[in-house]
């Protein structure tokens, strides 16, 4: 992956044939059944996310934020409604096709970092590239470049347990962007971090959106984290309460 490749998504916006919204959620419903009881987590939700936007998804616990993130990322399937990403209806994909679609289209960042403990930082970043036709040398080059973008080129050979929480999350960001996805989904990426590390992570996400045109959806409880985003999507009891457009607050870039 190179800066030129990352800019590809910014250029996609110029494609007159591309749908205006990268993500379109139409009447999505998700119900969990536990001990004979039905719990409606998402109740006919509609949402549109334009290309290159940085969205913060907020709401109280149990409002359906992570469920919506999982559904948009193809990690889960809705009980009703439809989700379109770049014009592709996710319900039409088989499990195998959905896995391939995830590898090609989405980059995930999790609260708990979710790095493979047996792999080094560079090997973790290389993981998504194992599903491509890139040679070993090319995979290494791409992974090194992604690590340098998050300021961790000198930590390539470290294992996750040898890194701080902030560094682990930056490795996870490098992993999320190494395959040049259209969409980056982040589930409380700063939830386990101190303020300084959180600012570094938010700075990186902001940069990915502004400079490289990546569309980002970030679940957060933290109003300060939400300030880094251009739009704040508010959920409550599985329903959309409104979208708040705002000017982004600059955050510190990683050192």
């Amino acid at each position: 992956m190179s800066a030129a490749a990352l800019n590809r998504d910014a250029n996609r916006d110029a494609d007159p044939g591309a749908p205006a919204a990268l993500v379109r959620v139409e009447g999505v419903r998700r119900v969990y059944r536990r001990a004979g009881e039905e719990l409606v987590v998402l109740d006919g939700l509609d949402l549109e996310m334009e290309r290159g936007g940085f969205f913060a998804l907020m709401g109280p616990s149990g409002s359906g934020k992570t469920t919506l993130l999982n559904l948009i990322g193809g990690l889960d399937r809705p009980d009703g409604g439809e989700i379109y990403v770049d014009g592709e209806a996710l319900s039409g994909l088989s499990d195998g096709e959905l896995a391939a679609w995830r590898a090609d289209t989405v980059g995930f960042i999790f609260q708990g970092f979710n790095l493979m403990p047996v792999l080094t930082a560079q090997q973790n970043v290389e993981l998504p590239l194992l599903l491509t036709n890139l040679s070993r040398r090319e995979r290494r080059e791409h992974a090194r470049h992604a690590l340098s973008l998050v300021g961790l080129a000198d930590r390539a050979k470290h294992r996750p347990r040898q890194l701080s929480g902030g560094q682990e999350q930056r490795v996870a960001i490098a992993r999320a962007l190494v395959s040049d996805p259209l969409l980056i989904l982040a589930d409380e990426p700063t939830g386990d971090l101190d303020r300084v590390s959180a600012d570094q992570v938010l700075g990186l996400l902001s940069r990915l959106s502004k400079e490289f045109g990546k569309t980002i959806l970030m679940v957060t409880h933290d109003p300060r984290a939400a300030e880094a985003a251009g739009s704040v999507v508010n959920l409550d009891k599985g329903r959309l309460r409104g979208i708040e457009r705002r000017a982004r607050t600059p955050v510190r870039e990683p050192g």
Partner: protein
Amino acid sequence: MPWSLLWRHLLARPLRSLLTLGSLSIAFFLVCFLRSVVGALEAGVEAASQTRLIVQSAVSLFVNLPTSYQSKIEGAVGVASSCKLQWFGGYYQDPSNFFAQFAVDADRLLDIYPEIRLVDGDEPSFLRRRDACLIGADLATSFGWSVGDSIPIIGGLYTRVDGTPWQFYVAGTYRSTSPNVDGRTLWFHYEYLEQSLETGAAEGPQGAGVFVLSLDRGTDPTLVMGAIDGMFENGPQRVQTTTESEFQRQFVSMLGSVPTLLGSIGGGVLFAILLATLNTMLMAGRERTRSMGILKALGFKDRILFGLLIGESLVLCLLGGLAGVGVALATSKPLAGFFDGFGITGYGIDLGTAAFGLALAIAVGLFAGFAPAWTAARLRVVTALGAEH
């Protein structure tokens, strides 16, 4: 397929992998070893002659027959030759130096047993001296004996009255061309034993344990067996005549159900290692639930995760199998020598046994890896990541 992940997972817990590998190696060694022991026990039966007959007491193998029976038996139609065979039961210096010794009709031994091929010394030397003996070449090597040596053997069943050991002159060494004739036996003159008993120089049971018969070409062994058994039907000592093959089978079954027991132990070992490996793999699968979730989220398909876990199990079992079979092959020769000392010839790890061990390793690997691999493949991503909502 991200094979590097497979190795990294195996090496993630090196102690556990090493211990599992050690258990697998020992188990597959034991399986190969026990299979070969059972094979060796049965090899004598399989290689035994169908046309050579054994006449023994109908009461028990441990009851001797009168030597006067020999001439009557030779009179039966179809019998070409006969040879007394009497167990001596002695040892060299210490009871742990155990090997078989038989008193035989020296002039008939090599005719009755053409499988005995002299490699040093000659038959006339053996026949010339009453105290002469033939010994297996491997036996000679073990104790450093050679032709011309005098060997002191302490009698077990037959003791010398003056308390001294029996002295045997080594007239020749031999190798056996068939597993049914032990390559570590000492054969000596029955006459030497008989005269020692008659003169009162030694004490022990009279008569001969069995008579070994060779038949004329084209003779039906069944008719001869019936005729000989009929000869002594009303005599003081009834006899039972069998083919050598049947005699060997009875001898093996006299060991109790040792082959069955050994087979059962092998089966038990296999079953135990199967459960242990299954447990290890289930544990590994549970520990990797989150990792599997990460891989799934990144776009790795179910079949890749299935392959990763079943591959890990296969690699572990195959490495254990290779190590176990390797040790079995490496110890084949020394163990063969050890078993020869107990009269069990034909021990050895052949290609069939090695292939059997490796095939079992693959089967155990597939079986133990299937359940965790299937579970990993069926796992929902959000469940694996612990992110239900």
